[in-house]
C-alpha cells in the first residue's frame, strides 16, 4: 500500500461519514419539544387575545370604555405572539399547508386591523359629535323661534334614540334634510348648520359603526386561529414522525461504527505483535556488527585526538567517553597510581555510576576481587578479562556491584608510561561475553596507543622546555641594556646589539679587546681600583660612571658587573650590563624647567619666584639694600582673549615677557604668575627708601612705556596698556605673602585710578586697617576684662525724674574712654554685639532690681538700646524673659523699656510685631528711637505695639531757630497723640527747647538740661541735682 493512496481514501471515508452523520443528526433534531410547547401556548394566547380585541371593540362601541389603550395593548400583545410564533421552524419551512394557513390568518388579521383603525377614528368622531350635539341644539333652541324650538328638541331626542339603538334613522335623516333646507335668520344660521352637521355625523357614524362591528367580530379570524392551530399540530406530528426515523437511523449508525471500532482495535494489536517479533530478531544480528564498527570508530577518534593533544588531562576523559559513546561500553574509567596513598585512583570516567569512590584500589596487592583484577593488570602489565560477572569466579561484593549497575562483562587493560606501569583502562559492557578476541585486540591496541601518546607527551614537553630556556636566554641577552662578556682577563668574548648601539663599536671591533676602549678619563685611578677590589671581593659591582663612545662623545652609564665562577670558585668570565642614563639626566633637567618655569613664556613661575624672593629678602636683610616687587597686570587682556582667541592672547604674553626682560637688569627677575599677571623683582637697590622707590618708579615707567608700544599680533596692530603696583621691601620684616599682597593691592589701586598707571603700596592705609583689627582684638577682651560700663542719663516728665536711659562706655586701658559710635559698628560687624547686648540687658535688670528696693528710686524705669543683630536672634524673647526671671523683677511692671530704631523694626516688621507683642505681655515697654530720621510712616506705626516714640535730637537741636524742625516736631507730637503714644524729646539742652516742647504738648524730655549720662555711683547725685534745679526753678519762675 502506498501511503498517499491510503490517506486520500481515508479522508474521503471520514468526510462522507461526517456528512452522513451530520445530515442524520440535523434531521433528527428538527423538532424541539420545548419549542413545540411554546408554540402551542402562543397559539392559545393568540386566540384569547383575538377574543379580547373583539370584547374591547364592543365595549368601546357602547361606551363601556372611554380610551383605546386596552385595545392597542391587546393588539400589540398579539403581534408579539405572532413574531414569537415565527421562531418555530415549522413556520419557516416550505410546508404548503402551514404556509397557506399562516397567510390566510395574517391577511385576515391585517384586514381586521384596518377595520379596527376605522372603528377607532369613527368612534371618536361619533363620540365627539355626541358630546357636542346636545350643546349646539341647546344653543340653537335659545335663539330659535318657538316653532323651531320644538322641532329642534324633537330632533335631539330622535337622534339620541337612534344612538341608543331604537332605529328610525332614515326618518331622522329626512327631518335633518328638511331643517337644512329651511332658511334661518343670520344669527341662527351658523349654529343650525353645526347642529345639523353633528346630527348628520351621528347618524352616519352610528350606521358606519353598526356595519363595522360585525365585520370585526365576525369570527373569521377566530376560525383561522383554530385552523392555524390544527394545521400546525398536523405538521408537527408529521415532522415528528420523520425525525423519529432519522433518530433510529442515527442510532443504527452509531452501533455500526462502534462495532467497527472494536474490530479495528483488535486487528491492529495482532499486526503490531507480529511486526515487533521480526524487528527484534533483525536488531540482534545487526548489534554485533555495529559494536565492532563503533569500536573501530572510537579507536580512530582516539588516534586522531592523540595527534591533536598535548597532555593527558584531556586525553583520559576523551578515551573514557569514546569507549562509552562509540565503543558501546556501558562504563569506562582510567585509574592512576597515587604513590602517596599506594592506591590506584580513578582520574577519568564516563557512564554510570559517576561516583567511583568505591573503586579506590590498592596497587600493592593483598586485596581480592575487582581490586585483584585491576592490580594484576597494573602490576603484571597484562589484560584481565571477566567474561561473565554473574558466573565467573570473582569476589561476591564485586559481583553484586557489577550486576547492580547492569554490567555483563568487563576488562582491565594496562597503560604504561616510559616503560613503567602508569595507569589502567577499565571498561564494562552491558552484555556477558562481549569481549571476544576482536574486541580484546582492539582495546589492547587502544591502551597501547594511549601509552604511546603519553610517551609522546613527555618527549614533547621536554623539548618545549629546553627550547623555551634558550629563547629566554637569547631574549635576555638582546635587551635594551648593553651587555659585554669577557674572559677572566677582561678580554671581550661577546657583546650584544645594544652594546653596539650605545658605544658605537660593532661586535667585530669589540671582540678580542678590553672594555678599556670605552674609558672617558672622567674617573680617576682610585675609582677603578675600588671597582676591582669590590668586584673581586663580592663578585659584583654596580655604579654610575662616564664612558666615551666611539665618536668621542662622553656619556653617563649605569653599570653592573657580575663575575661568573666555575665549580672551584675561580672566575671564568665577567658579565657587564650597562644602560645609558644621559636621557634620564636630561629628563631630570627638563622636569626642573617645567616645575619652575611658565611653559608659555619660559619665565620663572610662582614657585621659582617664591624661592628667589626668599633669597632676595634674606640677602637684603644682610646688606640693608632695598628690593622692590612690581606687580604688573595687563589691561583688557580678557577682551583680547575673548575676541581674538587664546592663540593671539598667548602671542601677546610671549611678546610682553620679552619686553619685560628688556626693561630690567640681569640680576632682576621677571616671573609670570599666570594669566596676564607678571611680577618683576628688583634687587640690590639703594639703602635709602626714597632713592630705592625712585629707581623702582623709573623701571616701572619704563615697563609701562614698553607695554604701551604697539604689538604686531599675526599681522594686526594691537595697543595694550598695563597697571603696576609696587611694593618695596627690606629684610624679612614683612612676610613674603604680605609683600605680594601689598603689591597686588597697589596694582588694584592703580587699576582703579585708570589704566596705564603705576602705584606704590601706601603704608598709611595699611596702618588704619591694622589699627581697626587691633581694636577688634581689644574689644573681644573688653567684656571679660570688665572694661565695659553703663552710664545712666535721667529722663524727666514734667521736670520730674521718671526713669533713665543706659548708655554703654568702654574704658580702654591705653586709649581711655571710647564712645559707642567708635566701637559699636565694629561690635555689630563682628557679632560681638550679641554678648555685649546680653550683658547690658542683664546689668540693666540688676540695676532696676536695686532701684526697686529703694523708695526714692522705686518709680524709675530704665531704657536700654537694643541692636538689630541682638533683636533678630530667634530666641531674643526667651533671653529677655529669662533675665527678667533671674533678676526677680516685678512680673507685672518690671520697669524695663527697650529702645528700638526704625530701621530695625522695619527690616522684618511681622517678626518685630510678634516679638514685641510677646514681650509686652511681660510688662516691657517699647520706645521707638531716633524717630523722624527714617521712613516714619503712619501705616507701620499703627501696627506696632509701642508705648513711646523718641524725637531725634537733631530735630530738637535747632527747634528754636529752624522753622522746618519745629513743624516736624509738631507733626510728630500730633501723630503720637492720635495714636495714643507718649512722645519723648532727646537732646534737650536749653530752656528755649524745653519751652517749645512743653508748649506743643511734649512733656517727657531727656538731655543735658536735666542731667548728663553718669556712672551709677554718681546717679544719686544727679537725681539730687535735678531736684535742686527744679526747686530753684519753681521758686524763681521766669
Amino acid at each position: 500500500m502506498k501511503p498517499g493512496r491510503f490517506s486520500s481514501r481515508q479522508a474521503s471515508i471520514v468526510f462522507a461519514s461526517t456528512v452522513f452523520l451530520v445530515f442524520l443528526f440535523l434531521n433528527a433534531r428538527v423538532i424541539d419539544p420545548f419549542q413545540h410547547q411554546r408554540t402551542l401556548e402562543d397559539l392559545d394566547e393568540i386566540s384569547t387575545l383575538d377574543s379580547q380585541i373583539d370584547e374591547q371593540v364592543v365595549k368601546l362601541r357602547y361606551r363601556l370604555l372611554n380610551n383605546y389603550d386596552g385595545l392597542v395593548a391587546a393588539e400589540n400583545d398579539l403581534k408579539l405572539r405572532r413574531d414569537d410564533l415565527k421562531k418555530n421552524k415549522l413556520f419557516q419551512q416550505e410546508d404548503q399547508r402551514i404556509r397557506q394557513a399562516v397567510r390566510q390568518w395574517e391577511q385576515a388579521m391585517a384586514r381586521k386591523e384596518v377595520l379596527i383603525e376605522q372603528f377607532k377614528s369613527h368612534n371618536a368622531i361619533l363620540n365627539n359629535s355626541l358630546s357636542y350635539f346636545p350643546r349646539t341644539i341647546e344653543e340653537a333652541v335659545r335663539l330659535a323661534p318657538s316653532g323651531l324650538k320644538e322641532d329642534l328638541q324633537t330632533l335631539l331626542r330622535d337622534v339620541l334614540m337612534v344612538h341608543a339603538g331604537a332605529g328610525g334613522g332614515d326618518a331622522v335623516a329626512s327631518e335633518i334634510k328638511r331643517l337644512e333646507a329651511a332658511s334661518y335668520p343670520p344669527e341662527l344660521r351658523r349654529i343650525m348648520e353645526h347642529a345639523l352637521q353633528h346630527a348628520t355625523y351621528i347618524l352616519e357614524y352610528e350606521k358606519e359603526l353598526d356595519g363595522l362591528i360585525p365585520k370585526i367580530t365576525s369570527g373569521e379570524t377566530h376560525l383561522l386561529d383554530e385552523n392555524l392551530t390544527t394545521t400546525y399540530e398536523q405538521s408537527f406530528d408529521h415532522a415528528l414522525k420523520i425525525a423519529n426515523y432519522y433518530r433510529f437511523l442515527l442510532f443504527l449508525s452509531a452501533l455500526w461504527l462502534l462495532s467497527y471500532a472494536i474490530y479495528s482495535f483488535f486487528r491492529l494489536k495482532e499486526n503490531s505483535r507480529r511486526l515487533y517479533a521480526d524487528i527484534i530478531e533483525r536488531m540482534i544480528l545487526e548489534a554485533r556488527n555495529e559494536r565492532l564498527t563503533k569500536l573501530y570508530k572510537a579507536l580512530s577518534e582516539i588516534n586522531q585526538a592523540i595527534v591533536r593533544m598535548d597532555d593527558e588531562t584531556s586525553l583520559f576523559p576523551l578515551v573514557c567517553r569514546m569507549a562509552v559513546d562509540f565503543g558501546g561500553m556501558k562504563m569506562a574509567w582510567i585509574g592512576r597510581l597515587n604513590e602517596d596513598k599506594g592506591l590506584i585512583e580513578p582520574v577519568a570516567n564516563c557512564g554510570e555510576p559517576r561516583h567511583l569512590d568505591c573503586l579506590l584500589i590498592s596497587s600493592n596487592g593483598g586485596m581480592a576481587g575487582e581490586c585483584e583484577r585491576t592490580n594484576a593488570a597494573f602490576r603484571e602489565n597484562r589484560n584481565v578479562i571477566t567474561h561473565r560477572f554473574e558466573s565467573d569466579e570473582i569476589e561476591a561484593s564485586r559481583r553484586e556491584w557489577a550486576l547492580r549497575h547492569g554490567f555483563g562483562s568487563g576488562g582491565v587493560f594496562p597503560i604504561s608510561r616510559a616503560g613503567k606501569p602508569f595507569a589502567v583502562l577499565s571498561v564494562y559492557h552491558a552484555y556477558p561475553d562481549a569481549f571476544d578476541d576482536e574486541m580484546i585486540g582492539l582495546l589492547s591496541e587502544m591502551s597501547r596507543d594511549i601509552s604511546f601518546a603519553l610517551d609522546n607527551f613527555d618527549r614533547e614537553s621536554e623539548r618545549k622546555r629546553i627550547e623555551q630556556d634558550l629563547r629566554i636566554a637569547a631574549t635576555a641577552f638582546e635587551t635594551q641594556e648593553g651587555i659585554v662578556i669577557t674572559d677572566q682577563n677582561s678580554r671581550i668574548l661577546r657583546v650584544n646589539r645594544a652594546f653596539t648601539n650605545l658605544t658605537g663599536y660593532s661586535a667585530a671591533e669589540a671582540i678580542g679587546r678590553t672594555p678599556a676602549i670605552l674609558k672617558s678619563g672622567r674617573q680617576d685611578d682610585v675609582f677603578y681600583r675600588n671597582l676591582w677590589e669590590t668586584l673581586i671581593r663580592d663578585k659584583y659591582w654596580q655604579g654610575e660612571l662616564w664612558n666615551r663612545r666611539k665618536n668621542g662623545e662622553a656619556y653617563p652609564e649605569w653599570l653592573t658587573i657580575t663575575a661568573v665562577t666555575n665549580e672551584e670558585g675561580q672566575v671564568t668570565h665577567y658579565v657587564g650590563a650597562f644602560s645609558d642614563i644621559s636621557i634620564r639626566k636630561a629628563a631630570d633637567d627638563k622636569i626642573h624647567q617645567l616645575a619652575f618655569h611658565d611653559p608659555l613664556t619660559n619665565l620663572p613661575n610662582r614657585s621659582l619666584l617664591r624661592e628667589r624672593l626668599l633669597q632676595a629678602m634674606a640677602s637684603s636683610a644682610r646688606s640693608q639694600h632695598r628690593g622692590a616687587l612690581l606687580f604688573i597686570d595687563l589691561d583688557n587682556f580678557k577682551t583680547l582673549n575673548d575676541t581674538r582667541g587664546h592663540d593671539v592672547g598667548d602671542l601677546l604674553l610671549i611678546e610682553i615677557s620679552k619686553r619685560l626682560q628688556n626693561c630690567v637688569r640681569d640680576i632682576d627677575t621677571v616671573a609670570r604668575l599666570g594669566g596676564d599677571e607678571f611680577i618683576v623683582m628688583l634687587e640690590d637697590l639703594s639703602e635709602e627708601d626714597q632713592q630705592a622707590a625712585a629707581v623702582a618708579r623709573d623701571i616701572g615707567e619704563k615697563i609701562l612705556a614698553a607695554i604701551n608700544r604697539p604689538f604686531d599680533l599675526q599681522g594686526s596692530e594691537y595697543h595694550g596698556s598695563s597697571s603696576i603696583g609696587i611694593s618695596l621691601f627690606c629684610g624679612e620684616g614683612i612676610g613674603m605673602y604680605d609683600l605680594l599682597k601689598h603689591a597686588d593691592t597697589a596694582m588694584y589701586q592703580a587699576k582703579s585710578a585708570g589704566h596705564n598707571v603705576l602705584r606704590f603700596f601706601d603704608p598709611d592705609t595699611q596702618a588704619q586697617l591694622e589699627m581697626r583689627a587691633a581694636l577688634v582684638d581689644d574689644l573681644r577682651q573688653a567684656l571679660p576684662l570688665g572694661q565695659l560700663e553703663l552710664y545712666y542719663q535721667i529722663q524727666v516728665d514734667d521736670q520730674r525724674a521718671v526713669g533713665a536711659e543706659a548708655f554703654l562706655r568702654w574704658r580702654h586701658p591705653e586709649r581711655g574712654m571710647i564712645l559707642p559710635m567708635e566701637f559699636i559698628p565694629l561690635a555689630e560687624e563682628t557679632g560681638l554685639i550679641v554678648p555685649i547686648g546680653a550683658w547690658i540687658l542683664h546689668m540693666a535688670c540688676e540695676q532696676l532690681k536695686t532701684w526697686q528696693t529703694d523708695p526714692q528710686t522705686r518709680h524709675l524705669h530704665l531704657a536700654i538700646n537694643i541692636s538689630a543683630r541682638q533683636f533678630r536672634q530667634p530666641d531674643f524673647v526667651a533671653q529677655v524673659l529669662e533675665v527678667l526671671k533671674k533678676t526677680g523683677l516685678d512680673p507685672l511692671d518690671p520697669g524695663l523699656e527697650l529702645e528700638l530704631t526704625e530701621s530695625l523694626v522695619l527690616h522684618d516688621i511681622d517678626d518685630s510685631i510678634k516679638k514685641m507683642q510677646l514681650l509686652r505681655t511681660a510688662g516691657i515697654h517699647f520706645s521707638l528711637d531716633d524717630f523722624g530720621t527714617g521712613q516714619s510712616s503712619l501705616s507701620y506705626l499703627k501696627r506696632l505695639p509701642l508705648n513711646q516714640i523718641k524725637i531725634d535730637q537733631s530735630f530738637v537741636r535747632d527747634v528754636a531757630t529752624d522753622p522746618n524742625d519745629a513743624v516736624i516736631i509738631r507733626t510728630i507730637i500730633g501723630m503720637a497723640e492720635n495714636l495714643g503714644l507718649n512722645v519723648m524729646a532727646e537732646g534737650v539742652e536749653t530752656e528755649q527747647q524745653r519751652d517749645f516742647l512743653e508748649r506743643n504738648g511734649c512733656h517727657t524730655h531727656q538731655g543735658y538740661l536735666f542731667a548728663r549720662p553718669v556712672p551709677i555711683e554718681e546717679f544719686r547725685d544727679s537725681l539730687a541735682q535735678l531736684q535742686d534745679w527744679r526747686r530753684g526753678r519753681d521758686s524763681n519762675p521766669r
Partner: protein
Amino acid sequence: MEHMDISPPTSPLWIKVVLGAMLLTCLYAWEFWPSKLPSVPPSPHYSVLTNSREPITPLPLEPPDLDQGKVALGKKLFNELKLSHDNTIACASCHQLDHGGVDAKKYSRGIYGQLGNINAPTVYNSGYNFRQFWNGRAATLEQQVDGPVNNPVEMGSNWTEVISKLQKDPSYAIKFANIYPDGITAENIRDAIATFERSLITPNSRFDKFLRGDTKAITPKEFAGYQLFKGYGCISCHQGSNIGGNLYEKLGIMRPYFKENRPLTEADMGRYAITRNLEDMHVFKVPGLRNIALTAPYLHDGSVPTLEQVVRIMGEHQLGVDLPTEDISEIVAFLKTLTGEYGGNPL
C-alpha cells in the same frame, strides 16, 4: 531501511472510528442537554389600566423595567453624531431632552443644513404611541430608528456606514460586546436606542396627581379646563394614558383644515402617503398631549406657535365650533398641568 515499512497501517482508521463514536455520543448528549430549556416568552412592553373611571389614566410612577446596560448604550447612541453622514446630527439634535424632547422649530434641519418637511414630534413617552411618525408608518420604536438615519434630509446615512464608523470607536466595540453576542449590528443599534427611548417616561404631572386623588394638585380653573376638554369632545381622541397616541384621526373632521390655495406636501397627505387609500387622506396619528406646553410649535406642519391658537384650530376644524376665548384659556390652563417629570425632575 526495510523496517520503516512496518509502521502499523491501520492506526488512522481506528482512531477515526473511535472519534466517530465519540462524536455520536456528544451529539446525543447535546440533544438532551438540560440547559436547552426554553426561555419565557417576553411580556409586552407595557400594559395600561383600562378600567379607570376617567378616560385619561396616569402614567405609572415606577420606572419601566428595562435592561439598564441597553438604556446606557442607547443614551450614548442617542447623542451620537456618527449616526449621521457628516457627523453633525444626532437623535438628540432634534429631540432635545431638555426642551421637551423637541427642537422648538417648525421643521428640523438635517445634514448640510437641509430643512425637513415635518415638525419633529417629542421623544418623551413615545413608547406609549401605538405607531410612530405622524403618519404611523413605523409600527415600533425600533422601526422608527431606520427613518431618520436613512432619510437624506435628516441624517442621510445608512447602516453600513454607521456600523463601520462605530466599529472604529473601541468604546462601542466593548459596550456592544458586553450586551449583544453579535456585536455592532443595525438591529442591536435599533434595539439599544428604542430601549433608551422607552425609558423616557414623564410621570407625576400635576394632572396625574389629581387623577391619583390629590384634588389640590390642580386649580379650579384647570379643573374647569378639564371639564371643557371632556365636554367639547376633545377627549374623544385625546384619551388614554398618553392622552392620544393610540388612534388615527382625520385632520379637519368638521371643517377642512387644508385650504384650497395652499399646495399640499406629501406630509400633509398623512396616512394616504402610506396606504394610497382615499379614506386615509389627511389622516394622522392623534398625538399624545403630555408635556404639550413644552413642544411648540404645534401640528404636523409646525404652523401654530401657541397653545391658544392650536386649541382654537382644533375646536374649529375637529369639533366645528368657535371656542370662546375664556374657554380656550381654561383648556390651555388644563393642558399645562400635563407637564410631567423625568428622572425625578420637572421637565
